[in-house]
């Protein structure tokens, strides 16, 4: 295990190599970078520039020309507040749902994944089968598992049958949970929980499998318990992977969502912010308001992400092995 970067310098004729990095011939390096760089320039930089412009533009209905406006931002802000009828604003509902998904995916599922990955890493009985089965939903088209789930919780599905047999639901009307505002979101979150376990587990397991066996063996000779091994050896040694996963999670915290399209198509108060934007594109809705909402989401997300990254880098040691 190396805790600091060793410096070495090597000269071979005209080629100078420092820390394994070759100096000279920038042309070749840029030729290799060019496809990625051009793609980034067009599909990221220009697209985001256009996105900012779009958020401040609207089409004049008379002249059909673009005019500058703040109306999209005004609409976005207003949509976060209560409507005149007293109900929650559309985007307030979307935000609430987004945050629900975020906390579920980020705290519950991701943490469960790391813990379960540890047991698979320790070769629990049947670990090969579990490793395959838990990753299974990630291998299938979104429609596959969502359809199965819908059939299972449908009014004539086996779960309603079971609940009625147990007397937990009183008939004669069978509930349609996914078509009921009171339950649709809860069932969507349960679906995310059900399928989320195993999602990022592959990364945690991959990182754990690279932990040197000698370190674990030495600790075991000293009589370390599984809990201490997990907390004091495994977690620190895979901390870089975990920080990356958690930073990426925070970076997308306002883009969190579930299988909204397949389960409810955004009906029954189940829309999330990212789904709302996506739905606007799909249905040809307002581009200005979607862009404005996206900009607002970025402005909120960026400082949080940078803060989490900064904290992560402060508390985790730079470890290579």
């Amino acid at each position, binding site marked *: 295990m190396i805790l600091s970067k060793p410096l070495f310098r090597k000269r071979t004729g005209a080629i100078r190599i420092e820390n394994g990095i070759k100096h000279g011939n920038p042309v070749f390096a840029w030729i290799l970078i060019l496809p990625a760089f051009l793609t980034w320039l067009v599909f990221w930089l220009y697209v985001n520039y256009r996105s900012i412009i779009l958020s401040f533009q609207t089409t004049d209905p008379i002249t059909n020309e673009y005019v500058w406006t703040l109306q999209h931002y005004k609409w976005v802000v207003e949509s976060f507040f209560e409507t005149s009828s007293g109900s929650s604003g559309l985007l307030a509902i979307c935000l609430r749902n987004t945050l629900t998904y975020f906390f579920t995916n980020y705290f519950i599922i991701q943490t469960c994944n790391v813990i379960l990955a540890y047991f698979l890493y320790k070769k629990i009985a049947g670990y090969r*089968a579990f490793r395959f089965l838990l990753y299974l939903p990630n291998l299938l*088209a979104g429609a596959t598992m969502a359809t199965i789930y819908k059939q*299972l919780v449908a009014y004539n599905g*086996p779960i309603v049958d079971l609940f009625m047999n147990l007397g937990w639901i009183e008939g004669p009307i069978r509930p349609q949970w996914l078509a009921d505002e009171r339950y649709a979101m809860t069932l969507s979150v349960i679906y995310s929980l059900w399928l989320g376990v195993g999602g990022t587990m592959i990364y945690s397991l991959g990182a754990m499998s690279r932990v040197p066996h000698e370190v674990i063996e030495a600790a075991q000779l000293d009589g370390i318990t599984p809990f201490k091994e997990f907390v004091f050896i495994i977690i620190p040694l895979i901390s870089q*992977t975990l920080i990356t996963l958690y930073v990426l999670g925070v970076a997308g915290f306002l883009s969190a969502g579930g299988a909204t399209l397949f389960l409810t198509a955004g009906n029954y108060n189940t829309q999330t912010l990212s789904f709302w934007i996506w739905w606007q594109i799909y249905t040809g809705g307002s581009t200005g308001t979607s862009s404005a909402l996206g900009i607002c989401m970025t402005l909120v997300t960026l400082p949080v992400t940078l803060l989490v990254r900064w904290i992560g880098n402060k508390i985790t040691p730079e470890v290579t092995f």
Partner: protein
Amino acid sequence: MARSNKIKRTKGEKILFTIAFIILAIFSATYLVAFFFVIMNSFKGSIEYLITSRFQFPKEWRWNYSRVFTEFEVNGSGYFRMCFHSIWFSLTGSIPALLSTAACSYAYARYKFPGRKIIFLINLIMLTLSLPGSQVAYYKLFCDLGWKNNIGYLWGCFGGFGGQFIILAGFWKGIDWAYAEAAYIDGGNEWTIFTKVMLPQAVSMLGVFFLLGFINSWNNHEFTMLYMPKYPSIAFGLYEYQAKTGRSMDTPLYFAGLVVTSIPSLTLYVLFQDTILRTVNVGGLKG
């Protein structure tokens, strides 16, 4: 020294592992039950599916799988055509992005050149800055360029940055430069070294990324839905079939379609899961 395969655990560990086993078993069982449900019902007739219990074996076993290839049609495309679209989108969605990422990360990892820090910064920005609103401008750009339902979409398939950049850059940094030196001595140039010395060493890692990218693209419905609706992939086709037929959907036929569609990605994962787990390792964001 051969390591004993038998793992001895203390009493406390046994209890802990038993609890973990039960949790894992419950989760796995629910997935298996769900699959059993789909496979079993894919052999029923559509009427029988509606009037009998969903967890009852078919009274009359029907081979709906042959109907998938003849009756399953979305936006004028049959199953085989959708299959072809899926393969095409999966290949074009994974190979260009993978090659451009490999080249970009290699240059970053092994060369010192003006703008190197900018490349790292771009990658960091792309990883930490989420810009959901840009989807709209992205879609408008595609439409303005006439790339919707057009092969021009391929220009957008190149990648270069993101999580794979970090993993590959770490991999390139770890390769001994002595290989390159030997190639230099034998008269090789930069291109020869990259393509004939370095890339072959990354074949297994690139292969894994290709597999994951392929599986991801195979299951991706959103891309086809927005950008190539005239050329439906199977993932989009399944959604569209369900959305268009609604309550009149032939559910057993749909289930048979789901099963057939799942076979390629399941097979790839079964064959390569050990390699995938060995290879996939996300590094840090420190650079």
